[in-house]
């Protein structure tokens, strides 16, 4: 009996395509955010608020991930922004391979900011890099303040958590300070905002965070040495 080395990463098939996606998007000056949450937390509603604001400032595209149908795409169709629906068929998350074929059309459309709405799921989307620059997650107040310690991978992937449906706070036992402290235990430095897609509270702050991240990426790309990144 003898031992031989292998040293093969088991997520490498997805991660290799994600790196390709990231290089391709960056080479074409596109900032990409992946939006994740449990089902029904308000991802599409947040986009309904943000798209009209952002569309006035950036050329937008949206990738909609759902298992079946295009219910979310139909909600967003009226804003004059290209919406690309991806149906996973059965998979509970988007992965880099699923998103890859759409990227050429997104580039051809002259996109500057790509918003990806992932499949509603607090577990699996966090495990699959798509090639995005940032992850935004939503946690609605009806889901409970104990979620950060139960779903550490997602809370650590997200640069921003929008605690949504705060208009319902007094109808729940959601302990907002506890949820924020818990999120910051699991991911010190995570940005936390409170939002409501009924009243519009906090939406401007989410937009401001996104614009800060877009500007940061553009500055980083401008500062990079000439020839950095490849166009495929």
């Amino acid at each position, binding site marked *: 009996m003898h*031992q031989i080395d292998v040293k*093969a*990463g088991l*997520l490498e098939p997805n991660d290799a395509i994600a790196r390709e996606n990231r290089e391709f998007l960056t080479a074409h000056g596109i900032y990409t955010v992946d939006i994740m949450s449990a089902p029904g937390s308000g991802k599409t509603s947040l986009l309904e608020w943000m798209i009209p604001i952002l569309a006035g400032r950036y050329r937008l595209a949206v990738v909609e991930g759902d298992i079946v149908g295009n219910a979310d795409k139909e909600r967003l169709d009226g804003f004059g922004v290209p919406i690309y629906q991806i149906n996973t068929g059965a998979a509970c998350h988007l992965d880099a391979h699923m998103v890859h074929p759409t990227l050429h059309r997104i580039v051809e459309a002259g996109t500057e900011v790509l918003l990806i709405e992932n499949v509603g799921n607090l577990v699996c989307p966090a495990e699959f890099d798509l090639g995005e620059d940032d992850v935004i997650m939503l946690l609605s107040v009806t889901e409970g303040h104990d979620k950060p310690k139960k779903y550490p991978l997602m809370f650590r992937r997200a640069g921003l958590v929008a605690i949504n449906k705060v208009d319902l706070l007094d109808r729940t036992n959601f302990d907002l300070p506890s949820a924020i402290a818990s999120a910051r235990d699991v*991911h*010190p430095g995570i940005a936390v905002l409170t939002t409501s897609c009924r009243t519009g509270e906090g939406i401007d702050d989410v937009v401001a965070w996104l614009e800060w991240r877009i500007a940061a990426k553009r500055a980083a790309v401008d500062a990079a040495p000439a020839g950095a990144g490849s166009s495929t």
Partner: protein
Amino acid sequence: MHEAGIALNLIEAVEQRLEQHPGHVDAIHVRVGELAGVSTEALDFAFQCLSAGTPLAGARLVFEVIPLTMTCSACGGTNPVEDLVFRCPACGSENTRVTTGRELEVRTLELSEEPEVAHASN
């Protein structure tokens, strides 16, 4: 999650290595970090199912579970992560990065000689 997909990646990675270094696989050593998001039981089960009827059938998966540790940019210390609190326990800084605990890789194979294959006599 998605241990079935990961098991398929594992089988492919092992088969690729065997092209360069043929042999009968007795055991596959896999490193799984505490925060890799993978259940070793589910991965083992998926592997047993998916390797059935292939040359890898019967190979044992040997798991090394890697504990979760973080390194602090402020004080330089590396400490275990307790209760999923990622602030540095030594100096309280928020500037920490996971050092170990996110691994998911095939590390080594234990091989024996290819068994003699009986050839049909014509």
